[in-house]
């Protein structure tokens, strides 16, 4: 599903070496936590996965596509195969919950009829059926993140990338979000979640990849226990 081969990334502007000789392989249907201190290279890992950045050297394969060779105009189509959730939710403030979710479908030329049936279904899945008409500013942080998650899910992507999805919400609700992601994972969706919340990681029985200074320092495939 995801394959990083000897990937290095140096930011030219600052000269920062974000990743060096980074190798990782994630299979279809896995749920992976990516942890590490700030500045370890987690954000760069996510940016490379989303093809926001290209690596300085090495190869990246996602879903059989070589991201290094992917043409610029093909990038939007690649991104449609991803569901992305951010720490700051990134909802459009002028659109209500329904439109924020429907937006991801409209972008991909889904017919109006399909939009009308898919959006309510997904909103029901994340427990927000009653809030369809609300604007993001009238929702709690946890609810906003569930809207973002609904938007990520609505295209039925094979891979979901979550960048610190619980960073801005209460611990109780964080648990709920990861629980929801785990449920989605059970249906076969691959999930990569970047976080620095250790107790959250230890609550779940998922693979944990620890990054520091641009390389993987541990890769615990079998259990949820995480020890610094």
């Amino acid at each position: 599903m995801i394959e990083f081969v000897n990937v290095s990334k140096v930011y030219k502007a600052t000269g920062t070496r974000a990743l060096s000789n980074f190798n990782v392989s994630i299979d279809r249907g896995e749920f992976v936590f990516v942890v590490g201190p700030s500045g370890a290279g987690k954000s760069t890992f996510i940016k490379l996965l989303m093809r926001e950045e290209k690596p300085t050297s090495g190869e990246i394969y996602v879903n059989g596509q070589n991201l290094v060779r992917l043409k610029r105009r093909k990038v939007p189509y690649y991104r449609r195969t991803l569901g992305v959730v951010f720490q700051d939710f990134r909802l459009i403030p002028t659109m209500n919950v329904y439109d924020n979710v429907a937006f991801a479908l409209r972008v991909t030329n889904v017919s109006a009829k399909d939009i009308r049936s898919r959006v309510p279904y997904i909103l029901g899945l994340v427990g927000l059926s009653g809030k369809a008409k609300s604007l993001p500013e009238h929702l709690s942080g946890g609810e906003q993140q569930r809207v973002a998650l609904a938007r990520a899910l609505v295209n039925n992507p094979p891979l979901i990338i979550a960048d610190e999805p619980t960073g801005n919400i209460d611990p109780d609700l964080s648990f709920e979000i990861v629980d929801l992601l785990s449920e989605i994972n059970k249906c076969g969706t691959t999930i990569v979640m970047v976080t620095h919340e250790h107790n959250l990681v230890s609550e779940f029985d998922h693979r944990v990849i620890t990054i520091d200074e641009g390389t993987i320092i541990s890769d615990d495939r079998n259990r949820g226990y995480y020890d610094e």
Partner: protein
Amino acid sequence: MKGSSFGYLIKEGAKSIYANRLMSFASIGTLVACMLLIGASMLFSMNVNKIVGFAETQNEVVVQLEDGLDEEQIADVGLELGLVDNIYNQRFVSKDELLEEQKAKSPELEDLLTGLEGDQNPLFNYYSVRVKDLSVLTGTVMRLESISGVSAVRAPDAVAEAFSSIKRAVSVSGMFIVAILIVVSLVIIANTIKVTVFNRRKEINIMKYVGATDAFIRLPFFVEGFLLGLLSALLAFGLLWIGYNYVLDAVSLNPSAFIQSAYQNTIPFEEVALELLAWFAGGGIGIGVFGSMFFVNRYLKV
């Protein structure tokens, strides 16, 4: 892109004018203000030019003929005059007619001139002509003087000088002011659009992350820029029309004879309306569309 999403994007563009109404208001305000200023200066300088042009044509040049020419020779001079480009409205006045004209001016002159009719007449035959372009008056006068049978040419040199320098000053300063206004407008408008797009960079960013193509992101901005430009053009056009007619009405009520004759020569708004509307619409839509496209492109590189 499918038809359904095309319609959706057009709607999105129109909706976002309302959703971002504060910035839309700022953009329309700036565009309208700039167009009003430019339009008003253009109308002002066009009118001054026309009025000065009219005053110019009121000047008479007297082509004085030598004494003792017979009718045929006088007619020859008339034909020669017809060949000079810069003059029109030529009119022959015989010395007898001139004498009567002078006599009619006042009883004193009548007393003085009575008895000088016929062979005693000390006056001269002349052609009265009008000059089209006073700025080349000197050349025209020299050309007239070279015609055989012409003894002297009397032209209003000082007036000509004054009028042509007014005309030149008005056109040059008018163009200068309009040019400055256009530059200033472009800077202000560019800034307004920049802020509008900047305020929505997050939205653009989100679209990029959910896999929107660049064309998909641009189209609503294109529609928005187009509509804002068109709306501003129509508003500016309407306001200018009302304002211009209001000023003309005020001028027409002024009792001064000079202002009255100037008023007769103002340009009616209807005469320039279509051209002005075309310029406003073209300029407004052009700036709206290219401005938003230019600044949106900056946020597409994610």
